[in-house]
C-alpha cells in the first residue's frame, strides 16, 4: 500500500468513496432499510475497532463498553431529557471518548495479551454498572428512545430519512478513520505496531500515541452505538455484553485486519449472515460465529479484503 504513488492512492480513495456512496444511496430501495441501518452502524463500529487492532496492534476485548455505554447515554439524553438527536449523538460520542480515555489510561500500562484481558475486565465493570444503575432499565433495557427531529427540521421517524442520516454518519466516521490512517499520525501508529522498540528509540511518545488511538476508536465506537440506539429506539444489555466485543473482533478479522474496507466487508458479512440465519438455525448462530473465528485464525488471517488484495497484487506483502 505504501508503495503506491500518492496520486494513484488518491484516485483509489476517491473511487472507493464514490462506490460506497452509490451503493449506500441505492441500497434502501432494494433492501429493507432497518437492516441496512444496522449494517452501517456495525460497519462504523468495526472501522473504529480496526483503528485499534489493525493499525495500532492493540487487541481490545472491551469495545462493547463504548458501543453500549454510549447507546445508554444517548438514549437517556434523548428520551428522559428531551435532547435533539444530533446533540444526543454528539454526547454519546464524547462519552465514548471519555470512557476510552479512562480505559486507555489503565490498560496501556500493560502490553500485548494483558491489554486484551484488562479491557475485557473493564468492559465487564461497565456491564455490571449497566445492569445495576437504575436509569438503564436493567434487564429490560432502555426502551422507547425517540428518534426525534434532526436539527429540529427533519422527522427521523420516517425510515428513509433516518436511513440517509445513518448513512451520512457512517460516511463521516469512515472518512475520519481513513484520514487518520493516512496522516503522519497514522504512519507513526503503524510504526509502533510493527516495531514498538524502534518507534520509542526514534523519540516517539508511544504511550501517548496509543492513548490517542484508543480515544479516537472509542469515540467512534460510541458514535456507532448511539446511532444504533436511535435506529432501534432501544439500548440494551446485549450492547454492552462481551459477546458484542467478540463480534466486532470477528468482523474486523474476517474482513481483514489493517485494511480500509475490511471492517465494512466483515460487518456486512456478519450482520447479513445473522439476518439470513436467524430464522433458520436460531441459536446455532453462536456456534457458527465461533467456527468462523477458528477458520479465520487457522486459514485466512488476512481476511477477505486482505486475501483479495494479495490475489490481485501478487508480490506485495
Amino acid at each position, binding site marked *: 500500500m505504501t508503495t503506491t504513488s500518492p496520486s494513484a492512492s488518491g484516485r483509489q480513495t476517491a473511487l472507493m468513496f464514490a462506490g460506497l456512496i452509490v451503493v449506500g444511496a441505492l441500497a434502501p430501495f432494494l433492501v429493507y432499510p432497518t437492516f441496512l441501518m444496522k449494517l452501517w452502524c456495525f460497519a462504523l463500529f468495526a472501522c473504529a475497532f480496526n483503528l485499534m487492532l489493525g493499525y495500532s496492534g492493540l487487541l481490545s476485548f472491551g469495545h462493547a463498553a463504548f458501543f453500549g455505554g454510549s447507546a445508554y447515554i444517548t438514549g437517556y439524553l434523548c428520551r428522559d431529557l428531551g435532547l435533539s438527536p444530533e446533540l444526543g449523538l454528539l454526547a454519546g460520542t464524547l462519552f465514548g471518548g471519555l470512557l476510552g480515555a479512562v480505559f486507555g489510561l489503565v490498560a496501556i500500562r*500493560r502490553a500485548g495479551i494483558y491489554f486484551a484481558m484488562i479491557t475485557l475486565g473493564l468492559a*465487564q465493570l461497565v456491564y455490571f454498572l449497566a445492569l445495576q444503575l437504575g436509569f438503564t432499565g436493567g434487564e429490560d433495557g432502555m426502551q422507547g428512545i425517540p428518534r426525534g427531529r434532526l436539527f429540529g427540521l427533519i422527522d427521523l421517524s420516517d425510515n428513509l430519512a433516518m436511513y440517509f442520516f445513518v448513512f451520512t454518519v457512517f460516511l463521516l466516521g469512515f472518512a475520519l478513520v481513513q484520514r487518520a490512517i493516512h496522516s503522519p499520525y497514522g504512519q507513526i501508529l503503524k510504526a509502533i505496531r510493527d516495531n514498538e522498540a524502534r518507534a520509542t528509540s526514534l523519540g516517539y511518545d508511544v504511550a501517548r500515541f496509543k492513548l490517542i488511538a484508543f480515544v479516537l476508536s472509542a469515540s467512534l465506537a460510541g458514535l456507532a452505538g448511539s446511532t444504533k440506539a436511535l435506529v432501534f429506539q432501544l439500548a440494551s444489555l446485549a450492547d454492552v455484553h*462481551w459477546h458484542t466485543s467478540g463480534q466486532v473482533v470477528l468482523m474486523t478479522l474476517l474482513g481483514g485486519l489493517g485494511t480500509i474496507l475490511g471492517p465494512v466487508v466483515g460487518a456486512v458479512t456478519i450482520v447479513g449472515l445473522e439476518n439470513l440465519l436467524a430464522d433458520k438455525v436460531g441459536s446455532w448462530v*453462536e456456534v457458527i460465529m*465461533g467456527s468462523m*473465528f477458528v477458520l479465520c485464525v487457522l486459514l485466512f488471517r488476512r481476511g477477505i479484503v486482505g486475501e483479495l488484495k494479495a490475489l490481485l497484487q501478487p508480490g506485495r506483502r
Partner: protein
Amino acid sequence: MDIFGIPSPAFFGQVLLGLINGSFYAVLSLGLAIIFGLLNIINFAHGAQYMLGAFAAWLGLNYLGVNYWLALLLSPLLIAALAVVIERTMLRRLYQLDHLYGLLLTFGLALIAEGIFKNLFGVSGQSYEAPELLQGGVHLGFMFLPLYRAWVVVAALTVCLVAWYVIERTSLGATLRAATQRPDLVQALGINVPVLVTATYATGAALAAFAGVLAAPIQQVNPVMGSNLIIVVFAVVVIGGMGSILGSIVTGLALGVIEGLTKVFYPEASAVVIFLIMVLVLLVKPAGLFGKQA
C-alpha cells in the same frame, strides 16, 4: 455473636463461599499461567473446559451411572484428551505468530462449546447432587459447615499445592521451567519439547475440568458457567501476574475472600469488586502483585 454488626453464621458463611470461589480462581489461574508459560497462549477456552468438565460429570451420572468420585478422575481425562486434539490440530500452527491469534482461536472454540451446550441443554442449570459421603455438615459453634464445601476447598488447594510442588521441586518441573525460558536449548538437550507442550496444554485443561466437577454440586451446571467465570479469572491473572505459581494461588484465594466479604458488607459491589481491585493494582503496580515487568 456478631462481627461488625453481621451475625457470625452469615459472616463466616460468606467467607467460606469466598474461599470456595477463591479456590476455583486459584485452580483456573494456575492452569492459565502454566499454559501461558510454555505455549505463549492465553487460553480463552479455559472457561469452556471448566464448563465441559462439569457437564461431563453430569452426563456421566445421568446417562452412564458414573458416580462423582469416578467423574472427578474421568472427566479431567476426557477434557485432557480433547485438549490434546486441539493442541495438535490447531494451536500448534500458531506458536510462531502474535499472541493474539491464540486468544482469538481459543475464544472461537469457547463460543462453539458454549453454543453447542446451549442448544442441547438450554441456559437453565442442571442440578448435580453431592456424593452421599459428603452430604450434610457439622456445627462449628460459630457457623454451620457443609461438608461438601469444606471438601471443595481442601481438594482444590491440594491440587494447587501438588502442581506447585511438581513445577518447583521435581526434575520434570525443572525441565518444564527450562522449556519455558529456552525451548530451543531444551530441545537440543534431547527433550521432546512438542510432546511437553501438548502435555502441558492437556494438564491445564484437565485442571479446569477438575474445577468444573468440583463446582457441579455447588453451582447449577449450565453452559454459561465458564464464560462468566473466565472473565473474573482473567482479572485475577492481571492482578497477580503470571510470574509465580504460589502467587496465583494466593491471589486467587485472597480475591475470593474479598469478594465474599463484599457480599456481606456492600452486596451491590460484589460483582465488580475484583475488577475495581484490578484497576487499583494496575495504577499502583502495573506488572501485577507477583509479576515481573513485561
